[in-house]
């Protein structure tokens, strides 16, 4: 009981407060540095805050969260044993510190015949690009802090989204090099798998977002999010007068978020990006129970960098998805009203804290979604993943591009696009709900050679027939069983 209370309290109070606090500090720090140094210096603090504090800390905490959340899903308690100076630490935080210490102090092993340079380069190449990915993701609004304009993004290049594609594909070099240079056959298999998987998903990844680029006519991530009401995703497709900017008031409506406009693209992007992060169900390069993984020879912090880059990819993927599909740091409703209130006008730091918190909460939710997926599905097979990438995601992505293009041309207000998107969501939901009832209730027991025991005169109905009829229905296990031909010492027929 106390555990449940603890979890709920931390979910609803501690985590938002923490996120809001850090974001407020980030804005304040940025504004201060702009004042004492030069205008634009806040970008430097953004590097510090967004990449080191948020991405790094979130990624490290996700290593713990993965263990704790998977424990929640599997009716376990999860790690809770590591103490700090003899005192118990709540929520297993001690484990995450202990893990870090362990990795830093382990022997740095190198296989005798490995290529030293490439072997050392592998983890760096896997780690650094992932780190750089977050540079273009805006985590909060642009505000006037201490008289200076402070935004919450490291860089705003014109090629925003393309930067993500380009840098994301760099990470595969680390994986392949690690697999190849370890001089280990298992690692080599992992490296080859990684390379081919990345190549096949790169295409689908890029294609899935073309529709979104057309809808918002931009590739810049801040432009996707939108700053003022009516730009980017900060606008309402349908809403009351306040939402349409006709009169002040509380704005309610359907925001033009990417998920409503492009649900298909979301699924495609999610799947393809999931494949890029190399996590289950796309963890062929690791394939723990098959080939142990491309990092099988790595130890200590070098392995830690592979692992950490995986978790950082989760955070960054979530961040990108939030920006592209979930309205970035915007609230679904009422944001224009919030911005207009006296309190927020007087204290822009507060607004930055609130909206920054919204962004990170969305990111955390998507991180959780990714971990749920990871702990639910089995792993694909190597060739099945290729098939999925080339034969499913790619054609669907192409169709999506054409349909989106036509709809955007037809109705530039995006309402038609949103209608088609909502229709898709409705169809998918309906199919999901209907799925369990699909299995036809075929007579159970027909496929069984021995219908009943010989002596007991129990009625031929089986109490559990409905429970697992679908198992047989699915496979039509209704063939007349083949009889054992020559029963030397196995008199099968005797029981009939």
């Amino acid at each position: 009981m106390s555990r449940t209370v603890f979890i709920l309290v931390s979910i609803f109070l501690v985590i938002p407060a923490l996120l809001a606090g850090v974001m407020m500090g980030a804005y304040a720090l940025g504004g201060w540095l702009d004042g004492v140094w030069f205008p634009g210096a806040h970008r430097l603090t953004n590097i510090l805050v967004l990449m080191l504090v948020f991405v790094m800390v979130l990624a490290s905490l996700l290593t713990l969260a993965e263990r704790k959340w998977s424990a929640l899903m599997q009716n376990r308690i999860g790690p809770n044993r590591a103490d700090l100076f003899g005192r118990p630490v709540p929520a297993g935080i001690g484990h995450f510190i202990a893990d870090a210490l362990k990795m830093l102090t382990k022997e740095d092993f190198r296989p005798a015949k490995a290529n030293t340079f490439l072997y050392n380069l592998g983890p760096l190449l896997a780690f650094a690009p992932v780190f750089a990915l977050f540079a273009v993701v805006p985590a909060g609004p642009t505000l006037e802090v201490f008289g200076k304009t402070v935004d919450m993004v490291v860089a705003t290049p014109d090629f925003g989204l393309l930067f993500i594609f380009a840098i994301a594909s760099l990470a595969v070099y680390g994986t392949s090099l690690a697999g190849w240079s370890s001089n280990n056959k298992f690692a080599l298999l992992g490296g080859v798998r990684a390379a081919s998987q990345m190549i096949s998903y790169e295409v689908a990844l890029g294609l899935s977002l073309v529709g979104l680029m057309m809808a918002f006519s931009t590739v810049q991530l801040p432009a996707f999010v939108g700053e003022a009401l009516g730009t980017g995703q900060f606008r309402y497709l349908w809403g009351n007068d306040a939402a349409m900017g006709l009169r002040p008031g509380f704005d309610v409506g359907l925001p033009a978020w990417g998920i409503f406009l492009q649900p298909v693209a979301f699924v495609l992007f999610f799947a393809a990006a999931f494949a890029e992060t190399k996590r289950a169900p796309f963890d062929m390069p690791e394939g723990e129970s098959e080939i142990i993984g491309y990092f099988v020879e790595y130890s200590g912090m070098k392995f830690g960098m592979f692992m950490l880059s995986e978790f950082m990819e989760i955070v960054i993927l979530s961040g990108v998805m939030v920006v592209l599909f979930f309205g970035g740091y915007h609230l679904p409703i009422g944001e224009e009203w919030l911005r207009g209130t006296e309190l927020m006008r007087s204290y822009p730091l507060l607004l930055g804290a609130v909206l920054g918190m919204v962004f990170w909460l969305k990111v955390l939710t998507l991180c959780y979604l990714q971990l749920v997926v990871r702990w639910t599905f089995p792993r694909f097979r190597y060739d099945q993943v290729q098939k999925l990438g080339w034969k499913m995601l790619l054609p669907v992505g192409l169709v999506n591009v054409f349909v989106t293009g036509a709809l955007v041309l037809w109705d530039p207000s995006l309402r038609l696009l949103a209608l088609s998107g909502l229709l898709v969501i409705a169809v998918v939901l309906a199919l999901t709900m209907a799925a369990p009832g699909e299995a036809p209730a075929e007579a159970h027991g027909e496929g069984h050679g021995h219908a009943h025991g010989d002596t007991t005169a129990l009625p031929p109905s089986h109490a559990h027939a409905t429970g697992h009829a679908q198992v047989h229905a699915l496979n039509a296990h209704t063939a007349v069983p083949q009889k054992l031909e020559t029963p030397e010492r196995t008199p099968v027929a005797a029981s009939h």
Partner: protein
Amino acid sequence: MADIRQKPVEPTPPDTRPEEADALEAHLETKRMYINLGPSHPAMHGTVRMRVELEGETIVSADPEIGFLHRGFQKSCENVTWTQCLPYTDRLNYVSALQNNFGFLSAVEKLIGLEIPERAKYMRVIGAELHRMADHLTMVGATGMELGGFSVFLYALEARELIMDRVTELTGARLTTSFGRIGGMNRDLPEGWKEKVLKSLDKISVVYKEIEGLLTRNRIFVDRTKGTGVISAEDALDFGFTGPCLRACGVDFDVRKARPYWVYDRMDFDVPIGRNGDNYDRYLMRMEELLQSDRIIRQALAQIPAGPIIVDDWRIALPPKPEVYGTIEGVISHFKLVMEGVQVPAGEVYDSTEGSNGELGWYLVSDGGGRPYKVHVRAPGFPILAGVPRMIEGKFLADLIPTFDTINMIGGEVEQ
């Protein structure tokens, strides 16, 4: 591709095609790769080594090598009394030890020509079916885990843990049960055990639904298992497959039905038969047999009669303690049974029961003394493991994992 377009179109394209294809293809020297899966490999449970020859990711040949868990079971049995063999049998199929215990005891009783009490027969059915469920849950869970679905494994183990608890209450041990004695059982069902078992079965059926929901219609799981590790019914029979692996090929053979022992003839249960002989069918066999074992246990618990649990014959069963302490006959019988063992008449016998993974056969030879002359186990996993190369050659390396899981080879009994 650009080169092809630039070339002038010729009237006879077939002549140029091979040239083009040849030019596009990189003629690199390739060679086959040998990798050793195991004996320490996450998917090679029971310390089996698999020497796999790979062409890319395709398996050209596979060579399972056993012996890393060899303990000298047969020879050990020759040096101890018949009863003392029992603890060795625990360690054959360590996931379902009760089936080994009872199978061995049944074979010895057949050699003696002994009929055991009704209650003991029911207890053996209950114990064997409980452990069949444990075995199948382990197999289903391990398959899920090694295909990447770790949650399934933990759900399955949660259900298995319930069985473990009930078995512990029954036998006093989680793993090495050493339960039953020649001529019956050594200990009666504990007080209130029946109700606990029924309650556990109810909980297991809840977990069962979760497992089924996670795997049976899971597209990834079905894709991974359907059509992989296929073996035809003829091949399976030639290799000597038994149990769920044989039934998955469509061959209708279950020792419990073919030659009912104990009280299986009084139980109403079905034997699932597959059709394709692939991993998915083998998985479905296990899932269905879980339900059937559930049925059998419920029936057996409802039908089990009161009465003695072991034969009243001091040449075979230990005399009751008051007799041992109170009468000279009791002391002598006890002494002779413990020191010399049960005197099994000279002769040989083959007896088999349906183990979780197939026909668990016992070939026993007695020279009339208290110790076995020869104990041979027909471990169901042995011929099935021998069939693995046939099932996976030409397939992907990744297919080896579910195949190895669904045949559910148990190192303890295969390597003895």
